[in-house]
């Protein structure tokens, strides 16, 4: 208790010393670039659902898929973003994004356990659609490097959300909850698919 109190006093003093408003040396657009990139993946529910579903499926498949899939997705998504930036056409982009939520959600719901390489290819295939869509939407006027970093980090953190929730799969009640979450993602994906086709 005594230690805790002493540490609290030290923490208060340190926080007071923390120069929260010191923005020295910051180039124009850098803060906007990072935050804009960080927020971009969460601006569309279809993207969010698919990325969370990647984490959920990884957790269902367990090691090594639990980390291989979330590592593969951002890298391949960035490759898709590169294609989008270069103007390489990708037909059926919105359909591909909606399908990703349907397929990944259904995989979680049905607890599909394909070989790791098959799961990786499925995830990578859909990642290209997500990346391509983002690549076409990247805004001008911000720090490209910080935007890219924020964008990739947000994607990875969405996977982490899926993984954290998916870890409940180890318990029987949690397993049903994770499957239900997968079903919810698939249903939402069907809605987005209907909207994309209509």
């Amino acid at each position: 208790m005594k230690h805790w109190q002493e540490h609290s006093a030290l923490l208060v003093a340190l926080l007071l010393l923390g120069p929260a408003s010191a923005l020295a040396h910051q180039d124009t657009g850098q803060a906007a670039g990072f935050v804009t990139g960080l927020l971009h993946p969460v601006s569309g529910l279809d993207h969010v659902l698919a990325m969370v579903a990647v984490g959920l499926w990884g957790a269902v498949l367990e090691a090594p898929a639990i980390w291989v899939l979330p590592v593969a997705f951002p890298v391949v998504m960035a490759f898709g973003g590169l294609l989008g930036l270069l103007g390489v056409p990708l037909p059926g982009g919105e359909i591909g994004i909606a399908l990703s939520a349907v397929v990944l959600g259904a995989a979680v719901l049905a607890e599909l356990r394909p070989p790791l390489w098959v799961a990786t290819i499925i995830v990578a295939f859909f990642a290209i659609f997500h990346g391509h869509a983002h690549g076409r939407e990247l805004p001008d006027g911000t720090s490209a490097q910080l935007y890219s970093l924020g964008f990739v980090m947000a994607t990875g953190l969405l996977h982490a959300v899926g993984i954290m929730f998916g870890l409940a799969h180890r318990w029987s009640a949690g397993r049903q909850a994770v499957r239900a979450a997968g079903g919810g993602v698939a249903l939402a994906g069907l809605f987005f698919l209907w909207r994309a086709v209509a």
Partner: protein
Amino acid sequence: MRRVVGRIVLALAGVAVALPVNAHLVETGFGEFYDGIAHVAVTPSDLLVVVALALLAGQRGIVAARYAVFALPIAWFVGGFIGARWPALAAMPLLTTLTFGVAGALVALNFKLRQLGVAALAIGAGVVHGLVNGATMAPAGASSLALGGVVSAIFCVTAILSAEVCALPKGWPQIVVRVAGSWIAAAGLLMIGWLSVS
């Protein structure tokens, strides 16, 4: 409890007595050194390559980390010196992006690069980024003291980070390192797209 309150009051009183700060130590002439340190922190490509190489060196073991801790700052300093002397050599954003992208990819893949390979990569990246630093900082009025700050920051970050990674236990902590590498590689891929269209 009274002692703790007394300490908090003392801490607050200490903070309230605001002595002149002399930001960047203008009066001592040592401010450029700190500008150099800050330069690494606010230049995304520099920070990413240092982090990626430190992670890679740590992954490859103590000997590789020792090589990188000295090879990277020294190469950076040499590159900076050359860049300050011949600034025309240093317009190479694609190369600086490639260095952190490749290093990040190697971390993500946990690539079994030999110790000398890590050193060679550190030297190559250090020279390239140092060239750009020297070419951009010197015309802005920065002296070799600023370059010293840059190199010191790089040495500290590389030493601390690679040592931490060397000491990581197997399992999740090492996977987190690979995930960080994949994010850096993905940011590099997106950055290449930006550079291609700008």
